[in-house]
């Protein structure tokens, strides 16, 4: 069988807090094909961002990352700093939530772009600065030549996120990981950035991991969606199925709780309770305490694992798999 671009198996991440060990990611599996766009949805503490920082070795010394992350079949977890550095930015690039503080305040925009080009494309300083300008033009920054000699604080947030995208494109990566790329931006600027991301994907054919708490953004960019809760994936399916036929009670709850811009104005169905803290997880299904369907005998006992429901559709909910037909029907109606 052909190897996918990325294959993650049993990834776990623990943080050493000094006194104790807190597990923040409890086993994560995912395959990404070349050119595929995967959306990762979750609330704070779901583990959606640290998964990728951990996979790329960007979490720092207090994090312990275990499991397997393969890139084109080659294990990259545990590689040395120099080998990892050769992968970051070149094979897998990343952009972050707050573009302005993600750029070095004391370096000019041009210098930061050139740095990537010299690192990954072996360019000379002169050809790199011509290429840097071309990259800024590709992400539709007006007056690109002038921007090269400016500093991040002289540019708007939206412009800085375009610079971050240009910098990510510099290494011609196979996969771009966009971690809440528009959360700090205004909605009309967010629309621009989403356009740029789509355009770049059309142009380059690179894969995309879009991490967001906003279901709307994920729906817009992703082919496939993984919903995460409390450090675990709970449901994964193609984008149309996840929004039109969600099966996990948490996914359904999230969609019901979402206010809409159009359609009938109904009272929102809120999910009761709150997201559990990583060191205070319930013994069984992490969502059980907030789940209207939870069955004390099943859900509080064991942590459900991801199991296939249909083609390309899996969920981690004991009720979906063990429920008798009538119980399932009540789940459908809920």
């Amino acid at each position, binding site marked *: 069988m052909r190897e996918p671009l990325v294959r993650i198996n049993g990834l776990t991440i623990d943080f050493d807090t000094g006194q104790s060990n807190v597990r923040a990611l409890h086993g994560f599996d995912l395959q990404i094909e070349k050119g595929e766009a995967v959306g990762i949805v979750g*609330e*704070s503490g779901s583990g959606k961002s640290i998964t990728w920082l951990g996979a790329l070795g960007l979490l720092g010394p207090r994090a312990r990352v275990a499991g397997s992350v393969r890139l084109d079949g080659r294990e990259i977890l545990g590689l040395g700093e120099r080998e990892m550095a050769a992968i970051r930015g070149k094979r897998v690039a990343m952009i972050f939530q707050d573009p302005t503080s993600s750029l070095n305040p004391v370096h000019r925009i041009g210098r930061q772009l050139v740095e990537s080009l010299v690192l990954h494309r072996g360019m000379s300083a002169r050809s790199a600065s011509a290429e840097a300008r071309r990259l800024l033009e590709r992400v539709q920054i*007006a007056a690109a030549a002038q921007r090269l000699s400016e500093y991040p604080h002289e540019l*708007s947030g*939206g*412009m800085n996120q375009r610079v971050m995208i240009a910098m990510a494109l510099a290494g011609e990566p196979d996969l771009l990981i966009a971690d809440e790329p528009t959360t700090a931006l*205004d*909605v*009309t*600027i*967010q*629309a*621009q950035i*989403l*356009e740029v991301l789509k355009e770049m994907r059309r142009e380059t054919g690179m894969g995309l991991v879009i991490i967001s*708490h*906003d*279901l*709307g*953004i*994920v*729906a*817009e960019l992703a082919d496939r969606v993984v919903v995460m809760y409390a450090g675990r994936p709970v449901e994964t399916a193609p*984008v*149309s199925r996840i*929004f039109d036929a969600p099966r996990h009670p948490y996914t359904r*709850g*999230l*969609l019901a*709780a*979402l*206010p*809409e*811009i*159009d*359609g009938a*104005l109904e*009272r*929102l*169905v*809120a*999910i*009761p309770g*709150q*997201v559990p803290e990583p060191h205070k997880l319930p013994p069984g299904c992490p969502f059980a305490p*907030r789940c209207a369907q939870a069955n004390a005998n099943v859900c509080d006992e064991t942590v459900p694992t991801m199991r296939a429901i249909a083609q390309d559709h899996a969920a981690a909910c004991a009720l979906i798999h063990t429920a008798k037909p009538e119980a399932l029907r009540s789940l459908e109606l809920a």
Partner: protein
Amino acid sequence: MTSAPLISVSELRRTYKVKTTGGWFSPTAELKAVDGVSFDIRPGETLGLVGESGCGKSTTAKLVLGLIPATSGKVVFEGKPVAADSKRAWREQRRRMQMVYQDPLGALDRRLPVGAQAMEPLDIFGEGTKAERRDRMLALFDAVGLPRTSVDRYPHELSGGQRQRVVLARALMLRPSLLVCDEPISALDVSIQAQVINLLKDLQEQLGVAYLFISHDLKVVRHVSHRVAVMYLGRIVESGRPEAIMRAPAHPYSQALISAVPSPRARGKERIVLEGDPPSPVDIPKGCAFHPRCPLATDRCRSEAPELRPFGEQRHVACHRAGVSITSARGAA
């Protein structure tokens, strides 16, 4: 809804002198944070104020509460003018108008149990006996859905959603008639936002409190507001009932704003993407402030600033081309 307005804001302006560079002798320019804003809120009604960062919505909130003095214009609350300088009258008014901010942790004192903090407004105004104050606090904790066991907890022991409930309980302690909410749910997790939205609506129904609800999130504003005002660069560009505005926005900026909202139910829809960033409020374009980004702009828009004029039923729009749809104008071109 023909009752007298609870609060009436007219031609409110706030400008700041800013230096264009860092030095002592560098030239100053005028930053127009709020540039002639007028609206009414009736008792028990919610006005949603939407716009992007820098549009002046938070400054408007502070002006309404008298937290900062206005450069010009008038705010009349329950029949009396709100003035930031007259201390005594202002204190009396502040009992009746309270504020809720985005960051509940920042709004709470981390060294005091939340119950004591929620009672503080009663202590300050010396209302009732100690037992009565405690009863009122417990009643409001019930109303906002906080367990009574949380009374003795400290802010850091509560979740973000619970903290915002504490802040709400405290704001409601003096039975205000107006609550100004500045991005009250933006810092909360998605699954918690709906809880707080529902809570705000329930509290309004029970207590008859009016809200000035400030948010960048149109979806949320639609759910909580009776009327909506869209702001751009210090001015209201469109106001009216949320249903009407969201279904058929008349101002091109509202059209773009609404079309930009990503939604799982409207995947792959055609979107209006504006060019460029909003201009700096120091350097507001001549004519209509929106014209450099507006796909419908004409010569008239570049020279003459449009007034906010009635447009259909209960709606006001400030646009020379009000009602022209960007999408169909594009299709025709």
